[in-house]
């Protein structure tokens, strides 16, 4: 039995369905991220787990107990918000102690736990400060400590790094993951940042329009996107429309040029199919080893991105981009130059046209 179970969860607001037919099992100690654009229902789902929203239908179980209609203060679920939500009238130590004082824990226990938490977030000297005296990153660490101090069953984080600048975001992200691993706490994390989700999670739930698009490990999500949405939202995959020339052999026609997929697929010959090509698997002809598939096009432009150089190539109607590792001796194709790109068969991913609810 999973530690957190969401079964057929649905949330309707007055005019819209925010979450539809959501099924997910999260194992004890697992770190799962909900990833998707604004309005995809990820925060609503998290808020239903926290108890701030009541599902229109479906059930939510925590550690085997049905908590669907339980008020948030009875769930023992820790929550960290994007805006920190520290109590401005309390010091850092009082903020961390709040949940335990509410639970009427003995004073000695509270003091010990607060010290423990302050050490955990590497702010042992700041217990007497007020939130307004801390930086954004420090405030968010205190918010994390406050949520962890009550020893919650599940830790929920709602875009906790979105309000922070890029450098702090990366370091705090690593800190969150390290703390989660140390404590082994079951964690659900909401973000719209795919890099954040990739680097933190054991599994990612990609969401769009209130539905699950795909559930999988970061590796699976990145390398094997199932739908066009996942392909476009995660990474920088090239999406193209292709016509099936021969489904049995995986032969496809892309704007008049022939390529092959690695495996045969269940489509009728003549049908149109959405495919994705990973930019890091495309080489300039002759520069790589994989020459099973070739596409010819005209260079639109090249963009220097530091460690990589991105080249955009126009086929007939579509544009493909591919990345080359930067080195001082690199010879880049010029704009308007005709080039041939090559890539292996397994760089071609066949996508589902429409998102369908996926069972976790």
């Amino acid at each position, binding site marked *: 039995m999973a530690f957190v179970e969401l079964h057929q969860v649905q949330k309707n607001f007055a005019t819209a369905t925010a979450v539809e037919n959501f099924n997910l099992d999260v194992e004890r100690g697992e770190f799962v991220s909900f990833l998707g654009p604004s309005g995809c229902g990820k925060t609503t789902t998290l808020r239903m787990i*926290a*108890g*701030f929203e009541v599902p229109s239908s479906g059930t939510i179980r925590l550690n085997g107990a049905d908590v669907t209609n339980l*008020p*948030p*203060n*009875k*769930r*023992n*679920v*820790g*929550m960290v*918000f994007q*805006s*920190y*939500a*520290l*109590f*401005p*009238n309390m010091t850092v130590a009082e903020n961390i102690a*709040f*949940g335990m004082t*509410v*639970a009427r824990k003995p004073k000695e226990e509270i003091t010990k736990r607060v010290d423990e938490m302050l050490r955990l977030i590497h702010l042992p000297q700041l217990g007497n400060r*007020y*939130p*307004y*005296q801390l930086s954004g990153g420090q405030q968010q660490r205190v*918010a994390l400590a*406050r*949520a962890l101090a*009550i020893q919650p069953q599940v830790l*929920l984080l709602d875009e906790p790094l979105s309000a922070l600048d890029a450098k702090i975001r990366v370091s705090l992200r690593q800190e969150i993951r390290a703390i989660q691993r140390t404590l082994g706490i079951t964690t659900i994390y909401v973000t719209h940042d795919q890099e954040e989700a990739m680097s933190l999670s054991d599994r990612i739930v990609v969401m769009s329009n209130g539905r699950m698009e795909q559930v999988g490990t970061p590796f699976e999500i990145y390398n094997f996107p199932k739908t066009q949405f996942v392909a476009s939202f995660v990474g920088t995959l090239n999406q193209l429309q292709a016509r099936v020339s021969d489904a049995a052999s995986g032969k496809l026609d892309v704007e008049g040029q022939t390529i092959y997929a690695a495996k045969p697929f269940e489509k009728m010959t003549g049908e149109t199919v959405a495919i994705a090509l990973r930019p890091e698997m495309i080489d300039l002809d002759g520069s790589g080893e994989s020459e099973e598939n070739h596409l010819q096009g005209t260079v639109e432009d090249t963009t220097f991105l530091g460690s990589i150089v991105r080249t955009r190539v126009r086929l007939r109607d579509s544009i493909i981009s591919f990345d080359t590792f930067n080195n001082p001796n690199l010879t880049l194709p010029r704009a308007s130059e005709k080039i041939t790109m090559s890539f292996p068969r397994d760089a071609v991913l066949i996508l589902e046209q429409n998102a369908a609810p996926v069972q976790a």
Partner: protein
Amino acid sequence: MNARAARNVSWFSWIVIVIGAIYFLAPLVGTFAYSLTALRDQLSFAAYQRAFADPKFVESFVYSNLLAVATIIASVLLIVPTTYWVHLYLPKLRPVVEAISLLPFVIPAITLVFGYIRVYSRPVDVLGIDLIPPLLSTSASTNIVLVAGYTVLSMPYMYRAVDNGLRAIDVRRLTEAAQSLGAGWGTILFRVILPNLRTALLSGALLTFAIVVGELTLATFLGIPAFGPYLQQLGQHKAYEPSALTIVSFLLTWVAMVLISFVTRGDTRSAAGTH
């Protein structure tokens, strides 16, 4: 802006400040000067001594102060939870509640008091069952009606103060954070929301205090020996004492304001901490 233009703006600002100061201070200075002339051909505090010596002054002043404290408590108990709830769950109703809070500006106190007299002089019954006894039949229960009336009269000020205070903090997130930490409504209200409304509540309380202590209409028509009616009677019979007491009232208000700014100094953290 060049130096000359800046100088002109600076002069203009000073002129506006001086005109404003004269407008506000001249009547006060005049009243104060007049209150010192109770004895012929000399300046003295005789009017103050005589006013303070009157047992009715102390009696009515203390009475009105107690009424003010009761009104502040009633206002806080009524307005804080209501405004908090509206902020949290019914934000669309905010304009409606705001409009209701402004009704005392539209409906004069005289209308309110005659409404009270009409309703509470006899038992309030529903379907022949007496729900509320005639509150105006005893002076003790009349005080309840008076405090209720004062709560209504002070509503625009208390509501606005509380509303502004709640706007300055992220009410929803703070509430949810407290809930996720196991807190119930009482704990949230008393340990999270109210402490963060300290400045707002003090401002609202001060305004309520000022309104109640000087209020005349409700107290007169309900026959309560409050400070407002006392001042009015005094004005009809004495010349200098009302001026002296007016100055005392002003001083008390200023003392209260200084106390508030002292208590709330450095309180900017309330807003800063939520960002």
